[in-house]
C-alpha cells in the first residue's frame, strides 16, 4: 500500500455571489497516493479546476468558503497558521496550468524565475540554483537549457513554454504535482509529448500526479485512476481500466460515447452530444441527482432522492442508482 500523499475529505467550496453563497463543489472526497496518476475528468462548470486551486489555497479568502478537510502527508493544509500553506506551495506540491504563457511572468527572463523559486525554498547560491534549473529543464526534454534560460517567455513556442512550466514546477522536487488542464491548449502531437513527459517524471521522481482534464483521451493515456465530476459532485470513480471498459454512470457513458471516434464512417458521420447543459452556479439544485435533467427519458423513480456513492466493484464507485436502468435515447428508439 503506497503512501497516501493527498487526502481530501468531504470538501465543499462555495463562492459569494452578490447576495448568497453559491456552492461550486459539494462534498467530495478522494485521495492521491505516491506513484499514482489520478485524473479528475469533467466539463467546464464541473468544479474540477476550483478543486485543484483550493488545494493550494489560491482562492481569494474574502469571497470563498472552504469546508471540509484537506490533508497533505497527514497534516491539515488549511489550519490556523497560514504559513503552512506557504510552506507547501512550490516545495511539497507543484502546480502547472493550462496556459503556459500566462503562467510565466512576461517581464522576467526564465532563469530569473527559476532562481527566485529555488531560492525561496532552499538556501542556495544563484549559481547552484541555475545548475538545478538546467537539470530540471533537461529532465523535461529540453536540449539547450542555457539558451532557454536566457529567453523571455514570449520568445518560446507553446510546447517549450509548457515544458518550462513543468520544469519550474518540479525544480523543487515536489511530492505531488497538480496539473490543471496542462495539455488543453496544445496541438495534439505536442500534447502527446507532454503526457509522455509527465509519465516519465512520475517514474523518475516517484511523484504523485493529480491531473485535471476534460479529455478522456488524456485519461486513457496516463491515468491510473479516474474521478468523474459533474456539477460539483463526484459521480464516478475507479481504476482507469474499469472506468473505460465498464463505465456505469450515465454521464461517464455519455462522455465516452461523445468522443470523436476514430472510425467516423461507422456512425454515419453523426457526433453524439449530450442534450442540455451543465447547470450554472446560480441554478444549482440542492438535492437529487444533478444529472437527471439531461436524461429526461428516464423516469424520476430511477434516481435516488439523495444520491449516494455506491461501490460497484473493487475500487469502482458510482453515484445514484440511475445507472442501473440507464440506456441511451437512441437505444430506446426515441
Amino acid at each position: 500500500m503506497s503512501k497516501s500523499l493527498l487526502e481530501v475529505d468531504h470538501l465543499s467550496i462555495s463562492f459569494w455571489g452578490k447576495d448568497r453563497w453559491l456552492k461550486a463543489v459539494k462534498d467530495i472526497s478522494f485521495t492521491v497516493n505516491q506513484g499514482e496518476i489520478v485524473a479528475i475528468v469533467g466539463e467546464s462548470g464541473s468544479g474540477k479546476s476550483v478543486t485543484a486551486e483550493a488545494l493550494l489555497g489560491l482562492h481569494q479568502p474574502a469571497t470563498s468558503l472552504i469546508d471540509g478537510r484537506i490533508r497533505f502527508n497527514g497534516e491539515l493544509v488549511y489550519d490556523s497558521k497560514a504559513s503552512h500553506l506557504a510552506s507547501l506551495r512550490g516545495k511539497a506540491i507543484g502546480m502547472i496550468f493550462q496556459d503556459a504563457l500566462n503562467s510565466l511572468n512576461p517581464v522576467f527572463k526564465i532563469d530569473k524565475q527559476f532562481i527566485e523559486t529555488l531560492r525561496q525554498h532552499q538556501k542556495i547560491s544563484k549559481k547552484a540554483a541555475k545548475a538545478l534549473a538546467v537539470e530540471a529543464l533537461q529532465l523535461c526534454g529540453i536540449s539547450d537549457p542555457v539558451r532557454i534560460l536566457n529567453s523571455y517567455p514570449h520568445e518560446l513556442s507553446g510546447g517549450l513554454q509548457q515544458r518550462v512550466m513543468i520544469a519550474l514546477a518540479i525544480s523543487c522536487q515536489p511530492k505531488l504535482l497538480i496539473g490543471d488542464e496542462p495539455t488543453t491548449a496544445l496541438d495534439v502531437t505536442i500534447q502527446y509529448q507532454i503526457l509522455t513527459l509527465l509519465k516519465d517524471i512520475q517514474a523518475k521522481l516517484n511523484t504523485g500526479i493529480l491531473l485535471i482534464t476534460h479529455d478522456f483521451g488524456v485519461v486513457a493515456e496516463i491515468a491510473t485512476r479516474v474521478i468523474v465530476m459533474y456539477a460539483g459532485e463526484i459521480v464516478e470513480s475507479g481504476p482507469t481500466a474499469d472506468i473505460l471498459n465498464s463505465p456505469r454512470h450515465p454521464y461517464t457513458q455519455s462522455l465516452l460515447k461523445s468522443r470523436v471516434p476514430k472510425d467516423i464512417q461507422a456512425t454515419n458521420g453523426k457526433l453524439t452530444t449530450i442534450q442540455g447543459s451543465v447547470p450554472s452556479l446560480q441554478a444549482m439544485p440542492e438535492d437529487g441527482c444533478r444529472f437527471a435533467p439531461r436524461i429526461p427519458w428516464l423516469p424520476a423513480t430511477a434516481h435516488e432522492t439523495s444520491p449516494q456513492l455506491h461501490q460497484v466493484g473493487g475500487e469502482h464507485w458510482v453515484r445514484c442508482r440511475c445507472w442501473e436502468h440507464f440506456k441511451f435515447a437512441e437505444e430506446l428508439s426515441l
Partner: protein
Amino acid sequence: METTQKHLTHLKHKASLGPWRLRISLADHKLLTIGLMMLLIMFSVAVFAPQIVQLDPYEINPMDRLTGPSAQYWFGTDEFGRDVFSRSVYGARYSFFIGMVVAALSVIPALIIGLLSAYFPLLDLILMRVMDGLYAFPAILLAIAIVAIRGSSVENLMIALVIVYIPAVSRVIRSAALSVKGKSYIKALDSQGASAFRIIGVHMLPNILPTVFIQFSYVFAQSIMTESALSFLGAGIPAPMPSLGNILFDGKAVIYNSWWMTVFPGLFIVMLVIGLNFVGDGLSNAFNQRHVGRVKRVKAKKGVV
C-alpha cells in the same frame, strides 16, 4: 463536519455586508448619487445666491474687520470688513457659472475636432499636431499669459480656460472615436456607401456620448480649480468681485489669525469639485468605461492646480 477556521474568520468581519463584490456594486450608484447631491446643494447656493445672502458682498465695514464667525457674519469678515459668507456664496456662484460655460465651450469644439480627426486621417495629421502643440504648454502658464495679454476680466478668463481645455478634451474624444471607428459595423457602413456625415453623426456620435458627458464633468471640475488658482494669483476674477480664489488670497496674508477666510471658501471649492468628480466617476462606472485610465490622463496633465 470540521470547518476551516481561516476562511470563517475572514468572513466574520464581513458577515453583515458581504465581501467586496457586494460593496462595489453599491458603490457605483453611491458615487453618482452623492455627487449629484453635493452638486445640487452647491447649485442651489449658486442659483439662489441673491435670496440666501443678506449682506452686501461689496460693503466695507472697517470697524468689523477680521472678526470671526458670529451671528451677524456667519463666516466672519475679511480685512475690509466685508462679509465672508456673502462673498463666498457669490464666489461660488461665479465659479459655478464660469465652470459650466467653460466646460460647454470646450467640450463642443473638442467633440467636433475629435470626431473629425478620428474620421479623416488628413485632418487628423494637421489638427492633432496643433492640439499637441497647445497641449505641450503648461496649462496654468498659458492661462496666465492669455489673461495677462487681454486683461483681467471674466470673459478673458473663460477664453483662456477654453483654449487650455479644448486640446486635452479633443484628444480623449479622438481616442474614443477611434475605438468606435475600428469596430466592424463602421467598416460595414462605409463599404455600403454611407456618407461621412451619416457615419459620424448617426453612428459614431451616440457611442461616444458617455465619454463626452464624463469629460464635461471633469472639465467643469478642473476649470473651477484652475479659475480659483488664477484668481488666487490675481489673474482670474478681478477684484473687488468676490471669488473663492480671491478670498483665499486675501486670507493668506492673515492666515495666522483669521482661519475663517481660508476654511470656508476652501470648503465651497472642495464641495464643488468633489461633487463634480463623483458625478464623473459615477458616470464612468455606470457606462462601464474602460477609459478610466485615459480620462484620468487628462487630469494628470491638468491636475497641476
